């Protein structure tokens, strides 16, 4: 049986449909590393827990596709499945390579501290650390899938160059291995992925790119508020692919009446896009009039869609 997509089902008779460019299942692997201090342990655990709950509840990831390795499983036995060791991580990648197929999404999140440089960049685990070169080997087994790997640790920047490749979005909390202070990216990224605040275009879906951009902004804002020099700047490969990886609802309806309205609405949204591109070349009053007309049409379709029984995202 095709697995249920990470997208939630919408309304009456709605069939599962991809919320992303590709079809397929979603696999999530969360790893919290060596914390060093209780306050970091709490932060790491809460960020991972947010994503775990969202993946399970809102993204629709099946239990067998949801993996969580933690520094200390006893801290969150309901979610953490095993200790975050090099061996367990390697084993999980092997499982991912076996179970997933081309077209699936594999989302990997590392929350912790890092060190080192280049391919020897490390993510700190209890016991031997794992290096970027280890991940490079493990990711080879996931060719053909859409892979998102987020290293939210300190000194993570060099993971980008080491792991970038086609079909992959790599995100790091720091822009280089020299940014060695503890990072705040993970908590903001987790919030971005799991709340509406990061939904920049308010379309009911949060793309990876939206979550990343929002989290990056929140990180900067946090340092500004505390009058501190920012010691982390997150980066991401392949913003184009990142825009197509989305989390949340937006499946096409199966009810024909709703489907027509939905299609009309999508077409009108496309017209708004086109109008915006022409803004600089138009008389401002004419632009405003046409914009309002299109937006009213969109709003009317939405109202009709809701009136026909389709629930809100």
């Amino acid at each position: 049986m095709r697995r249920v997509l990470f997208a939630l089902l919408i309304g009456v008779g709605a069939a599962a449909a991809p919320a992303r460019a590709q079809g397929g299942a979603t696999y999530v692997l969360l790893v919290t590393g060596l914390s060093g201090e209780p306050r970091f342990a709490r932060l790491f655990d809460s960020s991972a827990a947010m994503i775990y709950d969202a993946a399970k509840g809102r993204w629709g990831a099946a239990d067998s596709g949801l993996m969580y390795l933690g520094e200390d499983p006893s801290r969150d036995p309901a979610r953490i499945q095993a200790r975050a060791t090099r061996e367990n991580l390697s084993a999980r990648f092997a499982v991912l390579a076996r179970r997933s197929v081309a077209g699936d999404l594999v989302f990997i999140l590392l929350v912790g501290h890092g060190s080192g440089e280049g391919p020897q960049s490390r993510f700190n685990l209890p016991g031997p650390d794992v290096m970027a070169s280890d991940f490079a080997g493990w990711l080879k087994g996931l060719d053909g899938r859409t892979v998102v790997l987020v290293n939210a640790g300190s000194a993570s920047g060099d993971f980008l160059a080491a792991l970038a490749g086609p079909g992959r979005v790599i995100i790091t909390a720091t822009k280089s291995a020299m940014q060695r202070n503890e990072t705040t990216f993970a908590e903001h990224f987790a919030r971005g992925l799991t709340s509406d605040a990061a939904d920049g275009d308010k379309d009911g879906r949060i793309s990876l790119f939206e979550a990343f951009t929002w989290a990056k902004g929140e990180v900067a804002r946090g340092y500004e508020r505390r009058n501190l020099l920012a010691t982390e700047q997150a980066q991401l490969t392949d913003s184009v692919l990142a825009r197509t990886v989305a989390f949340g609802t937006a499946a096409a309806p199966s009810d024909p009446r709703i489907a027509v309205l939905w299609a009309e609405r999508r077409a009108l949204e496309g017209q708004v896009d086109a109008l915006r591109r022409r803004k600089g070349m138009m008389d401002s009053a004419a632009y405003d009039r046409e914009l309002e007309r299109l937006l009213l049409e969109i709003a009317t379709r939405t109202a009709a869609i809701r009136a026909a029984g389709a629930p809100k995202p």
Partner: protein
Amino acid sequence: MRAATRTVALGLLVGLACAASQDGGSPAARVRALAEAGRLAEAERMARAGGPSLAVPLGEVLMLSGNLAAADSAFSVAIRARSSDRRTAEAALAELSARRGNASAAERRAEALVSAYERDQTGWSADDLTAVGRAYVLLGTDDPQAFKAALRAFDAAVARDSAAVEPRIRLGDLFLDKYNAPEARASYRGALEVAPGNPRALLGLARVLSFEGNPEATAALRTSLAANAALVPAHVLLGRMYLDAEEYDSSGAAAARALAVDSTSIDAWALLGATAFLGGDSVGYSRARAQVFRVHPRPALFYSEIAEAAARHRRYAEAAQLGREGVALDSTAVPALGVLGINQLRLGDIEGGRALLEKAFARDPYHIWYKNTLDLLDELRTFKTVETRRFRIVAPAAEAELLAMYLSPLLEEAYDSLAARYEYRPPTPIRLELYRRHADFSVRTVGLTGLGALGVSFGTVLVMDAPSARDPGSFNFGTTAWHELTHTFTLGLSAHKVPRWFSEGLSVLEERRARPGWGADPSVEFLGAFKSGKLLPVTRLNEGFVRPSHRDEIGFSYYQASLLCEMIEQQWGRTALVAMLHSYRDGLGTPAVFSKVLGLTPDALNARFTAFVRQKFATALAAIAPWKGNGPGEGAFVDAIRAAEALEAAGKADEARTALERAEKMFPEYAGPSAPALKLAKLYAAQGNLRGAVAALARYNALDESALASNLEEAKLRQESGDPRGAAGVLARVNWIAPYDAEVHARLAELRDQTGDLAGALLERRAAVAAGPADPLEARYQLARAMARAGDAAGARREILAVLEAAPAFEKAQALLLELRGRAPEDRNR
């Protein structure tokens, strides 16, 4: 902080070529030792008896006593005789020419010495190298690169003779002249290692301490005078300290002592002139000015020194005028250009001030103050200005709109309130600048980083930290703005002659009147200091601001001054405060003002004030021990808090609560660390007594103007208790402490919606957008909703269309658009 005295460039600090390599018992060394100890008459006798070989030491002694013509002759003898110290004589003659205003002769002599040095330095002694350093300093007036050469020459002198004192002192003077206090200190200390107790090195250290605003400067100065009672620059510096404390008799006496030694000292005449000018003695001022013109044909420095003194007394317009007169005499005089430029900035003429500082900086590119200020002015060009009826609020572009939302109505309210109280309306617009970096505020104010204040008023130009300059919860920007605006009134009404204590006292008093909890609070240490007699008497209250003798004295003085003003208003009426300001404007000194307006001598007023404080804080004073002068306060109140903490730690919550309730009754006005009300709030909350917790938090928050965490807690508890109006009132206070929190604005907007305050809700939604929220589209949607609810359908429509333009799929916004579209047709066309 005040500017370092610029006494180097024209050789006003006369040196003594004391190379330690000289035989300590040589006749020249003995003459110099006598001069160094201030025994000038003896030194002169000995030098004259020594004949031509002592011509240079004789010249130095004669310069110290202001006998310039004779000094000239003595140095000329040494040069004609080609004595071994002729280069020192050449440098001294160059300095003498400069001192008498003969710039071309000074330059010619200095150039000759420098050329000889640059041709061939073989065999130049430490004294010779020091002499060429002095020549380079003179040439630095027109060629700033020469200052670097001067440094190298003095360094070379020290390297040539590690026991040489003079070059070390000259180095210190040069560094301090360029505001480099650490290097100056190191140089003076080096001199003292070689010559312990050297009065000029001791004076140098005192100047460094004075520059840093260190209260130990006075003691250091007295040490230098103890070593040499005839040290003119020391008398001048001491006089300046008296002047800054507005002790005009003492500053005049110090000037007289300096002039008794050297009647040609321009610095001493400038001190006397400043004393007369600031004391309203126009005859004395004219006399000093006439004397200076006898010594120097274009004494721009005389005017710039008095201008600096006027500026330190907040008389910025007069400072600018004096600077203008200095520039008219010598358009190349850097101190005159600088003081005029800085004060034009303080008067709001930004472009005029910038142009002058550019000129000053071009001639002296080592001047940290000018450089910092010019850099800041570049930054100021990126700021945004929001204009209200009577104010111009200038702030960083990202913050200006948000800050102006709150400051605009507050400032207008403050203006009306203060105008009614003081029966005076300052000219408008009044300019308020806010800086998000405290270092920038500090530079705008004193040209250097490190100023501890939050705000400054120059009259109709106010400058303060923006809330973003400090951690949230560290200060309240509303009360700071009100405080500074009050200075505008008191300065203006008194023609800027109001003494510091009275101006600050009124500003703090007006803060207290503006809003409950605003303004300073009494501390355990303050009341302990009162009890032990360690507060300054009212006649010396100014010293607490300009020359505090201990770390806490500035804070004590602010609060004490406000209590004194409060007492005067209570017992003589508001009009007494106004009458006092008028009296200062008319030139009366403080004792005369007390006598005229209050009918009391200073001692009688002091006694009345003591009784007032004793009565006002009777309960608290009974529970506070006399303060030892340092460290935390002690007494039954402190003991009660400690006992409560111990009970709480032992898990005895009920007993702890009883102890805290008792402690709070001992000192109900207390809002400092470990305040009983705050601890009670936690205990009550832990025991489920929400009402008690809210009441305790309210008591505390009514005292502390910048209590962020406890205000947020009170708002939360009030909301949970079903008191949205009360919660809204509390969050409105938070806006003055942490205005950048978009979530607080959003919460306050919701509460105002609930209580029907639609205009207030709209304001908060605007603030939430301006504060840069995490979800800007959601915030703008909420703003559009608030506009619609407040009756601005057209505005709401414009806003929601802009939101949907960015996010056409935003369903809530679409629904609002449809709702607005469904309104009456006439609304659509607005």
